[in-house]
């Protein structure tokens, strides 16, 4: 037997495996290159800023969602938690004249509580996370409508606009928040005991329990973290718009899942990196940005972005299929 051949094969496969994220990073760079060649406005500072601002929101929620995907669950109520927290912060500021910064902190605490409630009912009642959070998003959305009667809350103090609309140097503030979230989450996932336990639970919940890991406690904690991040995105969006609306975050549940999957986070748990979710979010945002820049017909926008997202998600499995085909061909010759 040709041992050398086996060895190189091994190194090649290992490299491919490890490059799961590098591959998607390459796609991102290619997309940026294509976009900047195709449209002279793409690299315009104004466009880049608005792109980063958009991507910050999908990115934050995507990072949160990837945490849940790592334990093999997901949360479809992220958008409604975000808009509810946004509206509550708006009401506190406008109707009760509470200090805006304090309102934000209170809203984040509420996000923690909403997320914690999600986690509690899912673990204690042993519900499926998808079904349970579909129900919960109905509840949070309903409270939204009861509170606002469908109207936007305007008159938010201008001093907080800076969080959503402002820049630090050339970089939009929401994007800075997004990076801070990523760094904190990555630290937790990669460097701490809790992070290891998250991967262990995602690998096998039964094995994790037999290892003595407090599985439910960690799951509830992740739901609470997801609640906080959703709420952060919600209040940032309020300060970006200058008003609190119940329509905030409508596309976030689906986009956050798509971003995570594009970024190589496995839907079945235990495999992936939250940083991938940010790259995935960047890809989705660039697609949407390009559609606008190329002046795609408004009615076609959703269809085009849908197709491109599906292509992006299939990227890794397509490369796998191609590799198998190639091997088969070599064998037949």
């Amino acid at each position, binding site marked *: *037997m040709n041992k050398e*051949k*086996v*060895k190189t*094969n*091994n190194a090649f*496969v*290992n490299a491919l495996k490890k490059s799961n994220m590098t591959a998607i990073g390459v796609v991102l760079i290619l997309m940026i290159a294509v976009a900047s060649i195709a449209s002279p406005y793409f690299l315009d500072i104004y466009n880049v800023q608005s792109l980063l601002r958009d991507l910050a929101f999908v990115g934050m929620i995507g990072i949160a969602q990837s945490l849940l995907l790592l334990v093999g669950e997901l949360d479809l109520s992220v958008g409604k938690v975000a808009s509810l927290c946004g509206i509550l912060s708006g009401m506190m500021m406008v109707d009760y004249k509470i200090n805006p910064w304090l309102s934000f902190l209170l809203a984040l605490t509420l996000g923690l509580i909403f997320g914690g409630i999600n986690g509690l009912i899912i673990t204690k009642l042993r519900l499926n996370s998808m079904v349970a959070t579909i129900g919960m998003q109905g509840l949070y959305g309903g409270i939204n409508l009861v509170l606002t009667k469908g109207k936007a809350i305007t008159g938010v103090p201008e001093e907080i606009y800076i969080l959503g609309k402002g820049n630090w140097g050339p970089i939009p503030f929401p994007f800075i928040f997004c990076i801070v979230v990523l760094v904190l989450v990555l630290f937790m996932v990669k*460097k*701490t*005991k809790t992070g*290891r*336990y998250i*991967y*262990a639970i995602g*690998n*096998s919940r*039964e*094995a*994790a*329990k*037999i*290892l*003595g*890991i*407090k599985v439910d406690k960690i799951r509830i904690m992740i739901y609470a973290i997801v609640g906080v991040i959703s709420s952060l995105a919600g209040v940032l969006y309020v300060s970006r718009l200058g008003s609190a609306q119940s329509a905030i975050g409508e596309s976030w549940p689906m986009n956050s899942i798509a971003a995570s999957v594009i970024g190589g986070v496995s839907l079945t748990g*235990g*495999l992936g990196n939250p940083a991938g979710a940010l790259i995935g979010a960047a890809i989705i945002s660039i697609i949407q940005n390009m559609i606008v820049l190329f002046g795609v017909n408004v009615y076609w926008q959703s269809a085009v972005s849908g197709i491109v997202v599906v292509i992006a998600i299939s990227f890794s499995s397509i490369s796998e299929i191609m590799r198998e085909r190639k091997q*088969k061909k070599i*064998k037949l010759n």
Partner: protein
Amino acid sequence: MKILEARNITKLFPGVVALDSVDISFEPGEIHCVIGENGAGKSTLIKCLTGVYEPEEGEVLIGGENAIRNKTLFNKVAYVPQEIDLFGYMSVAENLFLPYEQSGIKGMVNQRELAKKAIPVLEQFRIPVKPDELVKDISVSSQQLLQIARAVVHKDYEVLMLDEPTTSLTTSDTQILFEIVKKVKEENKAVIFISHKLEEIFALGDVLTVFRNGKKVAYSSLKDIDIPWVIRQMTGREVNQEQVYYSEKVLDEVLLEVKNLTGERFKNISFELRKGEILGFSGLVGAGRSELMQAIFGYLPVYSGSVKLCDQEWKLGDTNYSVKHGFIYLPEERKKQGILPVLSIRENISISVLDDLKSGINISKKKETELAWRVIDTYDVKTPGVDKEIQFLSGGNQQKVIIGRAMNCNPQVLVFDEPTKGIDVGTKAEIYRLMKELAEEKGIGIILISSEMEEIKKCSNRIIALYEGRKAGEYDAKADKEAILGSIIGVNS
């Protein structure tokens, strides 16, 4: 005439030559046994012979034709996998005839017709279930037989391939299986029988092929050889079959005291475990042994009764408490409950002692790697490195990693639930030796759950037999095999 033949096949996986230029052929009317240690290449061979894998070199011939070019030929090989592979929420009859059901109008399923057709098959296989029962509700033993029946009702097969068919069968069902296999042989079909159980191979087989490290190392008619010869071929060394492994340093101190414990599948169980003792739990599949231990461990609920460890009241229902207080359960379902499959060996080992591996608030990768290598060296795990995903290790090596991981937690009681399931003779002996060492040198109390009477007899200081969730007898190491057997099948009680 050779019905199924593999010529010079080689199958490569990243870093491994799983099959190395193997020639093997199967003849009609012959029971051909295949044996080899874990990782010897048996599974890969099966997958090549059933068309799941394509070998890199060589060809597979079925009835003289190249089956790799004409994949429909693989339909002639009826394959019964080791793991139960049935549709739990469909009826027995549906499972039996899928996907060949042809009743009524094309595309329609006539349930009554199917049920009628199923009855003679169930009778022939002596499976005590009704055709309309759901498969998830029938016993594991019946499921296993049903799985074989399903392969055989398909009339066109020429080769029947059984992969460790007896692992979840009771003794009497094993006899039924043997009769069926012999009948299939009389019908002039070829039978491939893959098993770790040497007694079964000698009771049933005609010829034997032995694999080691991806190579075919021996082929012989079973009439001309004996068990020690086979073990020598498999392991490349001598393994003493007569060796016993019970602990010789049992202390008087009582470690674990269980009183009148009742849970979902066991009733009123009391026993004591001493320091340095190996206590065997014998019983049939489904007798409640695993459930009992998982309940004490805190994984399953307890309805009544009490447990004391070192004279301290034991908190039930909390696995975290159990692990922290030195009671560790090593599960039977290694793949589902033992390993964290896509994590590396390093991460699998460190997961239970992360607090000791910190530097600052980070987990130190250096300390982790050192610990992993220490476990690999101590327990003789065969692996190219610590960063390999644990799912790619063989069953025996996975088991050693799991034992090593448990030992880092300074256990007082270790429960081994079927520790050698799917593990070959050579590695089995290593695991027995390990249990003996742990009991004698560290004074650990060991509970061994096993369905193999030989294993229980060889390793246990005392043996408790369970029958349908009740304690049916307690024996010491010198007790009669027949007496214990009587207890576990409910004769004595």
